[in-house]
């Protein structure tokens, strides 16, 4: 069963993502426009109010994701890797100053130039599985890519330098 994550825009602040756990606690993350992220937990007696708020740096957030076992996409891909020898799977983050920030997968001609497929793009907490050529990257996106290790290496280079 997948958990339904609610996404609420906070004008001027950012976006709030939250869900209610089986225990009945509301748990979530606030992504600020400034790049800050806060993990919060609400109490059972006042589910509207954040009881604990924890500020996470980018590294801390990644560490927490690792500990928790990654997203469902990551788990599914880990299974795939076991099935095919020599297949490389990697996660590439698009730097804000990348020449492809704001441009589409088609523009970058990733498949033609490197033989690598972008199987999903993670934007914040929202996964975009199987993006088409018209899908536009935005800075900070995490690209889940599949291909040969060499191909992935040259794609990393391509995304940084163009």
């Amino acid at each position: 069963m997948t958990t339904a994550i609610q996404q609420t825009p906070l004008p001027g602040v950012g976006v709030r993502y939250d869900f209610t756990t089986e225990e009945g606690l509301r748990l979530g993350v606030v992504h600020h426009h400034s790049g800050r992220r806060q993990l919060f937990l609400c109490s059972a007696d006042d589910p509207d109010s954040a009881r604990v708020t924890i500020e996470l740096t980018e590294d801390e957030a990644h560490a927490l994701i690792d500990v928790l076992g990654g997203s469902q996409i990551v788990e599914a891909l880990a299974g795939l890797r076991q099935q095919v020898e020599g297949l490389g799977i990697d996660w590439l983050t698009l730097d804000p100053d990348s020449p492809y920030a704001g441009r589409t997968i088609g523009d970058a001609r990733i498949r033609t130039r490197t033989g690598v497929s972008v199987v999903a793009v993670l934007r914040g907490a929202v996964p975009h599985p199987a993006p088409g050529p018209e899908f536009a990257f935005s800075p900070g996106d995490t690209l889940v890519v599949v291909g040969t290790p060499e191909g992935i290496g040259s794609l990393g280079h391509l995304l940084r330098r163009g």
Partner: protein
Amino acid sequence: MHAQALLWLELGGLILGLALLARLAVAWRLSPIPFYLLGGLVVGEGGLIPLVPSQDFVEIGADLGVILLLLLLGLEFTAVELRRALRSGATAGLLDLALNYTPGVAAGLLLGLGWAPALFLGGVTYISSSGVVAKLLGDLGWTANRETPLVLSILVFEDLAMAILLPLLAVVALGGSPLGAILAVGAALALVALVLTVAARFGEGAGRLVFSGSDEVNLLTLVGVTLVVAGLTEQLNVSAAVGAFLVGIGISGEAAQSARTLLTPLRDLFAAVFFVFFGLSTDPAAIPGVLAPAAGLAAATAITKIATGWWAASRAGVGRRGRVRAGAALIARGEFSVVIAGLGAAAGGAEELAPLAAAYVLIMATLGPLAARAADLRPRSQRKRLRIRRLARRRPGSGRSAEPTPGGPAS
């Protein structure tokens, strides 16, 4: 003494005084706005220390302060957020307008100020201070609360409403004809709609076009564009402040983020000058006489804001404590009330408007944060767990004074 030397001494002394007041505000975890106003009342005409040589600078600085306040406000929200707030928050926004504009107008008429000053007074009581409220939400750890999106969308609605109100009030102040008022509001509406549409579609691209890698170039470009647009809108009778606000909305994405970082210090300096200017052009001798009506108006409009927040939050299924928090968060009035009162005072008319607005904002900018902290009080059994958050905030570099105490000063 040398005239130039006297100018620098006076200006330096004034700004040092402001620094001292801001320090007090930070230490007491209150908004600095009432402190600056008090500072302004003490100096200047009728106050203890008259300001002579720096009067001209302070006057222009104050106008610049208004423009920067509105520019930063526009940068706060993206066009997409504004359009969404208009669509989903319109009912709560209109209720807010009806409940909080009316008491000001009614009080103005009861006090015999006449129609035009009464309309300005309505603007003073209507708009919550988005600066104070945003700071409260962050300090009290309310950002993730369920009622917070409603509070924010009410603020967004108020800001858009102000873009329409300012030109309307400007025409009223000039004693313009109904036709002139309709034209000004029509022009403002058209401009807002145009910027919202264009910015939502091309905002990021426009931002990237204007922005280069150099902070220096960006700062000069931004200030230059803003002042030119402010001048043009002023010429169209739409008010310079609205022009600055529209420039802010027009820039979004990465560009808006870096513009905010660049301009915030500049805004803080000139906004402080603006509050002082309002204080010093208000006669302190007139304050005691308007204290009673200001207090009454403050009490009434605190209740109407709580009612607004309560209603909006309950409609969204938020529990009782959340509804109280939503209402309490909205109480604070501040910078934009002073902006509107400043416009009204500059237009002439009733002499009581400026002192009344000054006394009102003094009360509301202080009462708002205190009320919000009181609404944050929880039953004793839960206080202990709160410590987790309080400990976590104590990071190196964040001084003791900046640390929020959810229990308020009494705890």
